[in-house]
């Protein structure tokens, strides 16, 4: 009877597993496999569609872009391009491609494939999140409106050369080409699979998709035709999907996965245990967390109130609450961003000065509502701020809500006076912080404090086309100084990312701005 029940259970499970994709993947002995886990499922593997860390982790493995960032830095390196030149006015960009790149289908990658990828992103029917990055190419308005079959601003004189002509100078256009949106895709595969290209991706990156079972796992295997010899070092990567942070940690402890995030509850234990601490790696991200104050809404229309809030917040205490996983922010730009101004001092913790400024502004007792994401860490941050502000006579009410309504709410004018938010760079240039977050044109979009200062506006306009980096950064630094003086934000901290890996994992490094690249990672044999 018991045996019959066992057989029945096994049969039922086999039937269900067959529908869902079967058991754990098996590899031949000696195969070098890196095992990971993700909290989220993979939204997409289509480079035109993905705009999140998890999708980009895999897209980096599957596809090649003309240029890419270093493994642990945000400097541009050639990827599919051998070299490139930029015209002095930053309107013409010429790339020369390697001739030894092939899609996993076997076909050679040519300049037409890069052109096709960008046209696909700009095609409204693709619903790509990357459209805005390529609108500056000549002919983009006509192409988007359907009045032109191709972008006139992309010229491919031969299979190994691609030239971009822009409508206006854009010194950071090369950075935009490092985003997965601009990765080469073969038109024949996209046309064959249509919207399901994401399930059947064909690229020219270091890995190929072997298996993707939604909600369970994704398995990547080495692309034997990858154009950089001896890479990737791994034979395969298995990533378990939808694993909660707690389960991820249990799996790491059991040796079932090789790299893990460190849950808050375990962080102190890990950092106090030398054998574990030496397995951790960390990196200051190109991101800034802040408290946004809507400068069009009372009481934040008064500069003294905004400055008082800056003096009132104890950022060191906040970072201690986060187990040290942050560095104090003195301004908008994080220290890992090129153009960062180390001389900017910001606002020290000075509750007396805060009280004095509030008194000067005639604010004896203030009641303010802080909008924030309904998540454990944000609530902890909110409570710390509540405590700090209470000391200077401000009654703070927390309003935790879900991300989608929060994003919608902050985009409405005169709606959200005070909020906890963060910004993570898409490319390493001050414009990706200052233009996007403080220009008048971003009201109702990313300028969630509805900040406006004509001097800042003029400086941003002046800096945008400047190709001389020293001059460019000097202009942005001037703009940042004015913004810090105007204090539309309380500049909180720059998050530091931490991961821990097993002792048999080598060369796993974190990039400040992008998911880790896995082609140079290796695992000791017979671990």
């Amino acid at each position, binding site marked *: 009877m018991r045996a019959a029940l066992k057989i029945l259970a096994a049969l039922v499970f086999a039937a269900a597993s067959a529908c869902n994709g079967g058991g754990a993947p098996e590899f031949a002995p000696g195969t070098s496999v890196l095992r990971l886990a993700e909290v989220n499922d993979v939204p997409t593997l*289509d480079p035109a569609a993905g705009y999140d860390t998890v999708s980009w982790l895999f897209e980096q493995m599957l596809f090649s872009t003309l240029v890419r960032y270093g493994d642990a830095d945000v400097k541009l390196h050639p990827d599919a391009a051998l070299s490139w030149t930029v015209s002095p006015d930053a309107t013409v960009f010429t790339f020369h491609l390697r001739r030894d790149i092939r899609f996993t289908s076997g076909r050679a990658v040519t300049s037409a494939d890069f052109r096709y990828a960008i046209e696909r992103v700009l095609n409204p029917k693709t619903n790509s999140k990357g459209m805005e990055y390529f609108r500056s190419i000549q002919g983009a308005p006509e192409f988007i409106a359907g009045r032109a079959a191709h972008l006139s601003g992309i010229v491919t004189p031969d299979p190994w050369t691609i030239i971009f002509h822009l409508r206006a100078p854009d010194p950071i256009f090369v950075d935009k080409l490092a985003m997965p949106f601009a990765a080469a895709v073969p038109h024949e595969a996209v046309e064959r699979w249509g919207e399901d290209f994401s399930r059947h991706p064909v690229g020219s990156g270091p890995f190929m998709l072997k298996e993707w079972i*939604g909600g*369970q796992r994704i398995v990547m295997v080495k692309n034997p035709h990858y154009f950089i010899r001896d890479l990737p070092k791994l034979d395969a990567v298995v990533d378990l999907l939808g694993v909660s942070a707690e389960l991820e940690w249990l799996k790491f402890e059991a040796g079932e996965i090789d790299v893990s995030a460190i849950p808050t509850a375990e962080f102190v234990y890990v950092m106090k245990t030398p054998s574990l601490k030496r397995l951790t790696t960390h990196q200051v991200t190109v991101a800034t967390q802040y408290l946004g104050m809507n400068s069009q809404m009372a009481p934040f229309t008064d500069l003294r109130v905004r400055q008082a809030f800056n003096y009132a917040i104890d950022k060191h205490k906040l970072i201690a609450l986060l187990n040290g996983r942050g560095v104090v922010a003195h301004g908008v730009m994080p220290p890992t961003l090129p153009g960062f101004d180390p001389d900017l001092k910001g606002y020290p913790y000075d509750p007396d000065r805060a009280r004095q400024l509030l008194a000067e502004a005639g604010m004896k007792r203030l009641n303010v509502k802080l909008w924030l994401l309904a998540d454990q860490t944000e609530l902890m941050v909110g409570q710390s701020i509540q405590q700090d502000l209470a000391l200077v006579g401000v009654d703070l009410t927390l309003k935790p809500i879900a991300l989608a309504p929060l994003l919608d709410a902050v985009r409405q004018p005169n709606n959200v006076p005070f909020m906890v938010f963060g910004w993570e760079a898409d490319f390493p240039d001050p414009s990706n912080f200052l233009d996007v977050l403080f220009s008048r044109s971003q009201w109702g979009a990313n300028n969630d404090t509805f900040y406006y200062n004509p001097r800042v506006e003029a400086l941003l306009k002046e800096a945008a086309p400047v190709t001389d980096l020293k001059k460019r950064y000097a202009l942005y630094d001037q703009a940042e100084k004015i913004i810090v003086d105007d204090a539309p934000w309380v500049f909180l901290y720059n998050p530091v990312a931490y991961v821990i890996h097993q002792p048999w994992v080598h060369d796993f490094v974190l990039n400040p701005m992008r998911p880790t690249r896995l082609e140079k990672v290796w695992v000791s044999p017979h671990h």
Partner: protein
Amino acid sequence: MLIYLARRIVFGAVVLLGTSLITFLIAFVIPADPAVAMAGAKADPQTLATIRHELGLDQPLYVQYGRYLDRALHGDLGRSYIRRQSVTALIVSRFPATAILAVSAMALSLILGVLMGTVAAAWHDRPIDHTLLVFSLGLVSMPVFWLGTMLLIAGGLYLRDFPLGGFEGPRSLVLPTITLALGSAGYYSRILHTNLVEALGQDYVRTARGKGLSPARTMFKHAMANALLPLVTLAGLDLAGLLSGVVLTETVFDWPGIGRLAFEAIFNLDIPLIMGTVLFAAFLIVVANLAVDLLYLWLDPRIRLEQAP
């Protein structure tokens, strides 16, 4: 009988239509822009406008609902905004995992519930009854996420007898099944206990005893048949609930079912996927209701007589 069945089916269809309408309206009333959810927090206004137009979000609500209904009737629940896959295909791919967990948890909870309820009723007001009462209440009160995590630590990390989550082989079914079944088992045992104690005091049971039937035969042949009836309704509806996804258990055990899919859809404001999973859950509940009604007709002749014209 046929008229009754037809009436129930029409009623079920109306419920589904109402559910689709309410879900649709809720999705559009909540203060969040699906285009922002799809394009991400950093999207510029032009990109958002393009996406709204491409998705038809700039059309009047009734047009959008009409299109949705038309497609749904053809089995097409739209495409997920975030995953860009067919919602129907996503639900179909996740259903087997949820179904196997739901059915095994239901089976275990019924076995345990009936066992505990019967023992407690047979020894009513004795120490074993009181012990089982406390035990059942403990099971009902135990939070699923806590129990699941404890079982994972004990069975997966220390004993290493069971996998640490995932959907890989029959052994991976054991811990989530226990986690999901214990709470319902405690509940069922209390319901059955109450019904059995009541039934054991009825005249027909006393008559059976007077005829010289053994206590066991009286219990199982006479009292149990009536006491089990309310459990049929409960278990039927519970099964429909389980089949439409168990978010916490699926999350704790990395179980790739519909509950986790629905949770992710809500978190990402993936409206087609939210609507698809809600409609699917409503469909299961309507079907379960119908099945329970039919089962009742078959089990209880009195109901059959009442329904007769």
